[in-house]
Structures are given as C-alpha cells and as structure tokens.
C-alpha cells in the first residue's frame, strides 16, 4: 500500500530575531495515522503546530498540509484542518448545542448539515440531557470530548490536538483516546501533542523535538529499541535531558 501524505515539511524553520524556534524540521505524516508530536516545554512544538495550521508564517523551508502550501494559502489550510486545544476551544457561556451550531457555521456548513451533525454529535456523546446546559457547567471530560467533536465537525483531512487530555481522571482520558481511534476510523488523520508518555504508545508514530529540531522519529517500538529501553519515559528523558533550552 502506498501511503498518502497528509502533512509534509521540508526544512521548515521559524526564527524570532536571533532565536530559532523551529530549526529546519523535515517529516511526513500519512493519512489515517495517529502522529504523536512530543517534546519538552519550549522545544518548539507550539510554533511548529502554528505554522502547520496557517497561524504563523514560516521563515524558510516548505510545508504542505492536506496538499495545500502553508506559505501560499494559509486561509485555505484553516478550512481543511481541525484544531483543538484544552484551553481555548469552546465558549463557556454558550450551551452545548450553541457551541456545535456556532462551529458548524464558522466552518461553512449549511443549516441542514448543521442540524444533522448536531444530532450525530449529541447522539455519539450521549449528551441529550446536557445539550441545553452551558459548557461552563459540564465536567471537564465532557468538554474535551465535545471540543474534539466540534473540531472535526467539517470532516477535515487532519485534526491537530494540543494537549487534549490534561487534568482529567485516567478513565476519562482513556475514553478520549477511544474517540481518537474513532476519528481515525473516519479517515481523519490525528496530530497530537501530550505530556503523558503512556499516550505516546497509542500513536502509530511519534516525533520528539529537542531545541527546535526533530531528534527522533519512528514507531514507539522502534524508538524504544533504538534507545535500548522498554519505557517511553526513558526514551524521552534520554533525549530531552540534553536540551539546551527549556521554556526558561
């Protein structure tokens, strides 16, 4: 099977003055993959993600996401991706239903599509009794699941998840990963960052960023073999401990 490339970067670089936040990273992500994007605080993950989602203009190098050049058509990128971050995704003072409709509208769905999608999401999340509640009043675990649902409401080719599972209990965290698997089953590629290294094991492939570079990339098994260890914690620690910069 020939893998269809969904994200492709070549020497993608971002400088802020003298500071090289992202230093010539080159990698590919394939359709239907769960790709884990790991790195210490300050390694450059967020900057790289912002470039890939059309929010930040690269200094040099090239990148295409869903076949679209991030240099030339950043606005088109935004229509073809989903983005979820634990912090900014939903409007707390809108209801569950209003949030779904709002995002459907933003992504240009028709009224009919919005109606169908709303029912589908409410049904899938089993939130019928909560759909008129303010997002502010529902538990964090439900917010996270709802945030993922609205991030993919327009059925993008790829969804970026920025630390999606912080702060919830382990059972809820596992349920969220079930949802990630369902997302992939729909043909949506998942690009995810996390500080939970056990979650790195659930990814098909992972990359680890150190000081703006990608220092390791492979399947969890390959990386553990390469660093002669059985734990992803050790792989991460061996790589990231040599980092010159942190978010300090």
């Amino acid at each position, binding site marked *: 099977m020939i893998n269809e490339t969904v994200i492709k970067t070549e020497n993608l670089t971002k400088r802020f003055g003298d500071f090289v936040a992202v230093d010539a990273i080159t990698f590919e992500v394939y359709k239907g993959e769960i790709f884990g994007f790991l790195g210490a605080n300050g390694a450059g993950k967020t900057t790289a993600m912002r470039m890939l989602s059309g929010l930040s203009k690269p200094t040099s190098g090239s990148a295409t996401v869903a076949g679209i050049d991030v240099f030339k058509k950043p606005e088109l990128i935004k229509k073809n991706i989903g983005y979820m971050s634990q912090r900014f995704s939903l409007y707390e003072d809108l209801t569950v239903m209003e949030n779904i409709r709002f995002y459907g509208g933003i992504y240009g769905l028709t009224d009919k599509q919005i109606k169908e999608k709303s029912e589908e999401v409410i049904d899938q999340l089993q939130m019928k009794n909560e759909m008129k509640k303010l997002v502010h009043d529902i538990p964090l675990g439900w917010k996270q699941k709802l945030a993922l649902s609205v991030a993919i409401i327009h059925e993008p080719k790829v969804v970026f998840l920025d630390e999606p599972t912080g702060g919830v209990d382990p*059972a809820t965290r596992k349920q969220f990963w079930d949802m990630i698997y369902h997302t992939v089953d729909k043909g949506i590629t998942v690009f995810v960052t996390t500080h939970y290294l056990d979650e790195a094991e659930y990814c098909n492939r992972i990359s680890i960023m150190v000081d703006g570079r990608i220092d390791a990339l492979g399947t969890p098994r390959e990386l553990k073999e390469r660093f002669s260890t059985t734990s992803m914690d050790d792989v991460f620690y061996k790589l*990231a401990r040599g980092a010159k910069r942190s978010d300090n």
Partner: protein
Amino acid sequence: MNSIILENISKTYNKDATLAVDDISFSVNEGELFGLIGPDGAGKTSLFRILTTLLLPDKGRAEVCGFDVVKDYKSVRGIVGYMPGKFSLYQDLTVEENLNFFATVFGTTVEKNYDLIREIYVQIEPFKNRRAGKLSGGMKQKLALCCALIHKPKVLFLDEPTTGVDAVSRREFWEMLKRLQEQKITILVSTAYMDEATLCDRIGLIQGGKMLSNDTPENTLNAYPEKLYAIKSNNVHKLLNDLRTYENTLQCYASGEFLHLSFKDENLNSQNEVVNFLKEKGNDEIEIKVSKPTIEDCFIRLIS
C-alpha cells in the same frame, strides 16, 4: 507527630448545590511527603484553601502543626508556605522584588533563609530584574516555589505544581521536593499525574470530593483486587474493541504499549479462553502476560 489533621471536612459551593469536599479525614506526619492524587474537580484545591485558612469548611475541623485552621488562622499563616495552582505572584514586580516582598511580609529577609532556596533560585537569578508577568511557565513555577519557601515554613502546600510541565522538568521538580523533605519540611502536594504517586510517602486517591483510598503507594498497589493481564496484538485497536464484547471481560483499557485486562471470573482457563476467543475474531500475534497494577489501574478500579 501529625503536622496536618483533617476530621470530617466538608465544603459546598453555590448554596449547597455543589459538594466539593465530602467528609474527608486524614492526617500527614511531620516530615512526610503526602500526595493528593486526583483529576480536576476532585476537591484538591478546596482542601488546600481550607488548610491554608483561605476558605472556611462547612463542617469538620482541621489543624496544621497543632493550630486550628479557623480559630488560630493567624498562627497557621505564619508557618505554612502555599503555592497555588494558578500563578499568584505580583506580575508587575520583578523576580527579586517579589521575593523580597514575601520575605518582608513574613518578617524575615531573603539572606536569612537563602540556603533553603539557593538551588532553585540560582536557576532564575539571571532574570532577577525581569517582571514576574514576563516569565515563562517554568520560571514562574520556580519563583512561586521560592516565594512559598522564603520564610522557612514548617508545612509546604503545593497545588498541582507540575501540571502542564514536561516529563523531564517534572522529574527534576520531584527531586527538588525530596531534598526539601530532608530539611524536615512537611509537604502536601497534589497532582493529576498518576505516575508521580509512587514518589510520595503516602497517597490519598481523591475523586468527586471523596477520599477513595489513603495508604502508601506500595499498599495501594497491593490492594488491587483482581489478577491483571497485559495483552497486545498486531492491531491493538481491534483487540480493544473485541475484548469489550467478550463476556468474561471485567475491565479493559489501553495502558501504554499493552491493554490491561481483568476477568469477571478468574480461573485456570481464563487466559487460554480469551486467547482462543480473540483468535476466532481474527486477531494475530497475540501476546498475553500477568502484569503488575499501576496507581492508574488502582484509580480506575476504585472509580468504576
């Protein structure tokens, strides 16, 4: 001797509509590193605020170093250090000004207790003239810890100090806590990271305002009631879906590279039977072995 004692503490919000802390009792020994382990909304922060005299409990009583947190609140305030989960230093004061401010408020000087913070402070000293609001997350965390320590408290309260912090920095932070413990400081720390639990002397697992278990990490692990298996195949996602339909499955969920699995009816044939079932369903390269539970397994078991 106990540094912290809680007896039947309860706290509600929104005119009794939200029960944040539900009849919690436990104690922390002098010099102990006690971890409150639980997700957001478990009641950890409410407990911290009650113990640091910032919030009145509805019911129950608590004391810190022999002082009642309600009646003797002024005495409590002098002997505790508190690092809230939300950054709460003065954003428009510099690093150095914040530290001097907190030392002065507690009637001491930075010089007097510098030994206690030296190791942490040297890492942020190059930025001592920078305003606190302009610091990065990791530096804010270090400054907040310095400010919580500068009056040499007897008891240190750390509310989710490692949330959002990467694995390397988390490890370093815990090494720092161990060294503070050697200075005879009692530490109550909360975290949502289950893997940090094993670094504590004792842990309380907390969810929905209730204490589910309170013991050493070792005893907590030994109390896991079922035999636990680790299982994988060449398609773990399919494996998980199939195991969820298997009639003898008690619990099954992803845990790192493997799935963790327990049976409703555990007997000599359970292992063979499940493997046969999975083969019939078309799973290949099945690997199954008995596994030791982690704190995460214990937590999931307790809340299910």
